[in-house]
């Protein structure tokens, strides 16, 4: 802090010095021109003094300010420290206050605890008193218990005695147990021995098993070896047989050759044979055809004969019957006539039948009448019998009455005789008269009855006559019936049969219809199962946008796109087939189009790249070759003085550097053996000497060429 203060002072001093050093040259500067006027000098000095005063004052002010700042700082520090201490104090105070409060609360708690303890104490005192009481009661009980205890002690002593006895028994038993344990130990030792033996035995057994297993292995090996031996023997046998067969091979080869020859011969013969067979077959077929033809012929002849006979018969028939049957129409006419007759007869038959039926009906009526008449006759007979009996009875009565009358008369006569017109006679005569009257009446009655009897007899006679007539009628009817019986019976039988047939037909119909019905029902069921429906009652609905139609639409769209693609691809293929020149241009236009539908496969891309690289290589090689060739030609031209061109195959044209005209050139032809020959040109004609010298004489083309060069060069330079 102090150091900082010093530095501030120093800085103020420095600034002051600097200020002073600045003002001094200014004063010097101002002194030189201001020497003219004193007033001015004075003013200037006053001003300077004022300025010095001002500077001093400012300096002072700055110093004071500095001091003030320092003061303020120190003041601040002091205040800060004071505040700090004040806050510490307040904190301590607060702490103390808290502690005080805590202590107060502790005191309160302790007081509470004290009061509680006091309360507990009083409670404990009460409890103590109660316990004392309990203790006394318990002491009493204890005394009782002591009494019981003493009695119990007595029993205990007795029990102890018993215990002693029992202990003795236990000791005895211990002894026996000891003996048994000894025995047990012995037995265990024996057991150990046995176990050891058992272990030995098991070890032996294991070794035995091991040996057995090895034995079985050995046995297996032996078997295998035997099998191999057998195989070898078989092989040997096979070898022997093979050897013998080998020995037979040359003979067999000879045989084979022979057989091959035979075979070829047989093949030829077979071919011949097959040819012959085919011929035979053809001939046979022809033969068969011929035979068939023959048979047909015979049949035809037979038929013809038959037809002729038939014709004859027809003609005969016509002659024999006397009818005009010459033609089938006549016959048909006849038949129609016969049919008409038949119809007429049938009609007659029907009328007869109807008559028979009516006769039958009348017959049945007559029969009924007959039976009625019979009944009547029977009744009449009965009546007659009754009448007869009545007549007999009446006759008897008559007899009796006559007898009575006779008796009465006798009695009367006796009375008459005895009395003879006595006093009874009037009475008697009266009675007699009465009796006679009665008699008369009875006689009258008798007469009446007799008349009646006669009448009945007469009736009987008429009835009998009637009966006889009826019987006669019956007989006649019976006869008729018998006559008619046959025809009617047959008619009824026919009817019956017809009716039966009808019934059968109807039954069959019914069964057929039933079957049909069943069939139709089954079909209906099947149709129902297959999903058929009655369009009158039912209607089939589905959603307009069902998955099937959606899928179908999608499929169609796909198909369309695919077809478009196919057509595009087809066009591409066609263009590719048309030619390579067009490919390049179309390829560029079509490939991007295809990019959407069908990205070109990797292979194609690779191939294309390869092609491009190879083309590039070719191009480069061509360029290089061209360059090299050009270079070579120019070098040749410069070095040899000849430009070489290939006009046609195997022809080389040489044009010299020094040629006078553009057309002057030499033509060489390469022969078949590699030798070069000069061809005649306009220019070569002018070189007759050189040709004869160098080519014909020296046979050197280079010499000739150099001579020509030299000649031309000399000509040019001379010009």
């Amino acid at each position, binding site marked *: 802090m102090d150091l900082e203060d010093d530095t501030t002072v120093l800085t103020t001093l420095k600034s002051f010095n600097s200020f002073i050093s600045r003002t001094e040259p200014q004063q010097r500067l101002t002194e030189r021109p201001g020497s003219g006027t004193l007033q001015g000098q004075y003013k200037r000095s006053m001003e300077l003094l004022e300025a010095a005063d001002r500077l001093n004052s400012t300096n002072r002010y700055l110093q004071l300010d500095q001091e003030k700042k320092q003061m303020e700082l120190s003041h601040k520090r002091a205040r800060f420290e004071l505040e700090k201490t004040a806050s510490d104090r307040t904190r301590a105070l607060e702490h103390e206050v808290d502690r005080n409060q805590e202590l107060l609360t502790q005191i309160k708690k302790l007081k509470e605890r004290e009061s509680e303890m006091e309360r507990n104490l009083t409670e404990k005192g009460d409890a103590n008193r109660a316990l004392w009481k309990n203790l006394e009661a318990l002491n009493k009980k204890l005394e009782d218990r002591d009494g019981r205890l003493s009695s119990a002690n007595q029993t205990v002593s007795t029990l102890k005695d018993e215990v002693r006895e029992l202990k003795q028994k236990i000791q005895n038993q211990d002894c026996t147990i000891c003996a048994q344990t000894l025995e047990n130990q012995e037995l265990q030792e024996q057991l150990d021995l046995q176990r050891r033996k058992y272990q030995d035995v098991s070890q032996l057994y294991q070794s035995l098993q091991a040996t057995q297993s090895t034995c079985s292995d050995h046995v297996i090996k032996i078997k295998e070896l035997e099998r191999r031996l057998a195989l070898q023997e078989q092989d040997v046998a096979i070898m022997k047989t093979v050897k013998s067969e080998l020995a037979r091979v040359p003979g067999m080869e000879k045989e084979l050759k022979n057989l091959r020859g035979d075979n070829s011969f047989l093949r030829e013969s077979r071919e011949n044979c097959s040819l012959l067979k085919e011929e035979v077959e053809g001939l046979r077929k022809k033969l068969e055809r011929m035979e068939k033809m023959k048979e047909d012929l015979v049949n035809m002849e037979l038929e013809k004969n038959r037809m002729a006979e038939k014709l004859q018969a027809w003609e005969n028939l016509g002659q024999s019957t006397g009818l005009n049957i010459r033609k089938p129409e006549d016959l048909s006419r006849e038949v129609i006539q016969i049919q008409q007759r038949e119809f007429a007869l049938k009609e007659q038959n029907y009328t007869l039948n109807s008559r028979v039926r009516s006769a039958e009906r009348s017959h049945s009526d007559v029969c009924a009448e007959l039976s009625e008449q019979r009944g009547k006759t029977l009744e009449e007979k009965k009546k007659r019998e009754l009448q007869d009996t009545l007549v007999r009875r009446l006759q008897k009565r008559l007899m009796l009455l006559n007898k009575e009358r006779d008796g009465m008369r006798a009695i009367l006569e006796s009375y008459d005789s005895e009395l003879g017109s006595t006093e009874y006679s009037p009475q008697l005569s009266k009675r007699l008269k009465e009796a006679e009257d009665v008699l008369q009446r009875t006689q009258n009655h008798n007469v009446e009855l007799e008349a009646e009897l006669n009448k009945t007899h007469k009736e009987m006679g008429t009835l009998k006559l009637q009966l006889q007539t009826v019987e006669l009628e019956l007989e006649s009817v019976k006869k008729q019936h018998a006559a008619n019986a046959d025809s009617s019976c047959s008619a009824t039988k026919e009817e019956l049969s017809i009716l039966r047939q009808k019934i059968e037909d109807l039954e069959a119909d019914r069964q057929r219809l039933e079957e049909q019905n069943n069939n139709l029902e089954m079909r209906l069921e*099947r149709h129902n*199962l*297959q*999903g*058929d*429906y009655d369009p*009158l*009652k*039912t*209607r*089939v*609905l*589905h*959603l*307009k*946008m*069902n*998955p*099937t*139609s*959606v*899928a*179908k639409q999608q*499929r169609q769209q796909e198909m369309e796109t695919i077809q478009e693609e196919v057509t595009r691809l087809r066009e591409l293929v066609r263009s590719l087939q048309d030619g390579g020149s067009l490919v390049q241009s179309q390829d560029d236009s079509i490939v991007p189009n295809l990019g959407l539908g069908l990205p070109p496969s990797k292979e194609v891309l690779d191939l294309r790249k390869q092609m491009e690289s190879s083309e590039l290589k070719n191009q480069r090689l061509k360029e290089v070759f061209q360059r090299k060739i050009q270079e070579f030609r120019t070098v040749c031209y410069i070095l040899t003085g000849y430009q070489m061109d290939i006009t046609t195959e195997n022809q080389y044209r040489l044009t010299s550097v020094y040629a006078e005209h553009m057309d002057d050139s030499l033509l060489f032809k390469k022969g078949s053996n590699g030798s070069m020959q000069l061809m005649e040109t306009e220019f070569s004609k002018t070189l007759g000497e050189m040709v004869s010298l160098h080519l014909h004489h020296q046979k050197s083309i280079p010499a000739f060429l150099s001579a020509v060069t030299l000649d031309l060069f000399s000509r040019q330079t001379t010009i």
Partner: protein
Amino acid sequence: MTSTLKGITLKGSAELVADFFSFGINSILYQRGIYPPETFTRVTHYDMILQQTTDPNLKNYLTDVVSQLKEWLFECTVQKLVLVITSLETNDVLERWQFDIECDKSAKESSAPREKSIKTIQDEIRSVIRQVTATVTFLPLLETPCAFDLLVYTDKDMVVPEKWVESGPQIIEQSEEVRLRSFTTSIHKVNSMVAYRKTDSF
């Protein structure tokens, strides 16, 4: 389920039958491979594990059809529901799963619930769905890509709702038919059967 445990009403019956159709159609589509098996998820219903589609288009379609069917079942105007499987290459109908529905129209007048417990009905439904699953063993393999359609045979006098149009019965020529089990809610009786085209190899 609106019906009580003891009896069953017409509405409850319609819902039960519509549920059966929903699950039955799902399991047929799964079993016959009309939609790829990875678009199906497993759900437990009728105390058995069933496959249900997750394809959103198919789901919408099925809910549309089943809700309409429920209405018709409630009105007792539906006679048959047919699931037709068609080959997309040849447009031939290869399979027809037919569910004949016999409605007891007297249930429309009397609202008294019938005495048949839902448990027994669900047992019957379970056996029908099991049989549908088992039919895969004898039905010919669907070798070409196929699509399905649902036909509903209804009474003629009914008004055709929007989005629905009339269709042919899509009968299979030369078919073999196999009857499957049936179940009844005592109001609706559902007889199921499958018809499939005879294969040429026999």
